[in-house]
């Protein structure tokens, strides 16, 4: 009877893949809809383009019950501390999708009160361009995030400790 020698860590990587598969297929979004992209977010959750079929079954409005924050719309400087607090209240593992041009870069609103990209202050995983992005684009970004989770996910969430994820994506420029 041949005894198959498994390399070390196979059980763990298999477990990682299983847990990542579970996590990616049950991403519950926290809709942080501030502006027009929120309408497209609602349209994505409605029946024609349904994100429930990708596992995002419910839009829980409590950050304690979500693992994906979708920031849809421009974030004013008055709203940014609220955004940061909601992000900190979410449990690990958590991901963030920046939906639309305004959340990603400030969009057309290069003014004194609009934050020019939430990735200056929040770690963002996937950016969705568009003004507003069509529901198909948002679904594409959720699928991209699912691929990212499957590729890099670990049981204990060690992928978030990687150095590439530690620094903010952009230098803080006014």
């Amino acid at each position, binding site marked *: 009877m041949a005894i198959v020698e498994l390399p070390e860590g196979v059980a763990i990587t298999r477990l990682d893949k299983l847990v990542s598969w579970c996590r990616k297929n049950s991403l519950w979004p926290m809709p942080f809809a501030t502006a027009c992209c929120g309408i497209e977010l609602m349209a994505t959750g409605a029946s024609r383009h349904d994100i429930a079929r990708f596992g995002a079954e419910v839009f829980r409005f409590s950050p304690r019950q979500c693992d994906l924050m979708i920031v849809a719309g421009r974030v004013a*400087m008055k709203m940014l501390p609220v955004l940061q607090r909601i992000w*900190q209240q979410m449990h690990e593992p958590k991901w963030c999708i920046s939906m639309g041009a305004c959340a990603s870069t400030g969009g057309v609103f290069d003014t004194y009160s609009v934050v020019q990209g939430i990735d200056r*202050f929040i770690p963002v995983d996937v950016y969705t361009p568009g003004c507003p992005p069509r529901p198909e684009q948002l679904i594409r970004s959720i699928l991209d995030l699912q691929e990212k989770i499957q590729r890099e996910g670990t049981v204990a969430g060690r992928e978030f400790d990687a150095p590439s994820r530690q620094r903010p994506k952009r230098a803080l420029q006014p």
Partner: protein
Amino acid sequence: MTEPETIAALKRRFPDLTVSEFRGQTRVVAPPESIHDVLTELKEHLGFDLLIDVTCVDYLNYRGAKDRFGLVYVLTGTETNRRIIVRTFVNDPEPTVPTAVDLWEGANWLEREVWDLFGIRFAGHPDLRRIVLPEPFAAHPLRKDYPLQGRGERHNFPVITRAES
């Protein structure tokens, strides 16, 4: 009461008003000392009982401007179905105008917005504080000498990375 009658009644009471009319829109310019009396007269006796808006124009770089801030009060009569625009001009430093809150309660927030964005004080306002911008904001952004992109207030926040969240 037709428009010329309104104007005539106003001019009888306040002889130093400037009145102009353009394409159906009547404008009355009052000095800031008598703006409250003009508004009272318009509200009580001439039938303009609804305050639509209080706003301001900054004439800093405007050719031919004599004063810096032009306050605009838009009044409507609900029974006469007429509109009138009342203007007054104030200057730096410390532009101050008597408040219209005792005439119209709705002027409370409208004047707070003008204070927030232009920096015009309303004497006698019960609660003059910022309404659309956060309280620690240190400037009045709709003035012409404030840059569009701001002076860094919009990015003056702590950064949260994956390590801290």
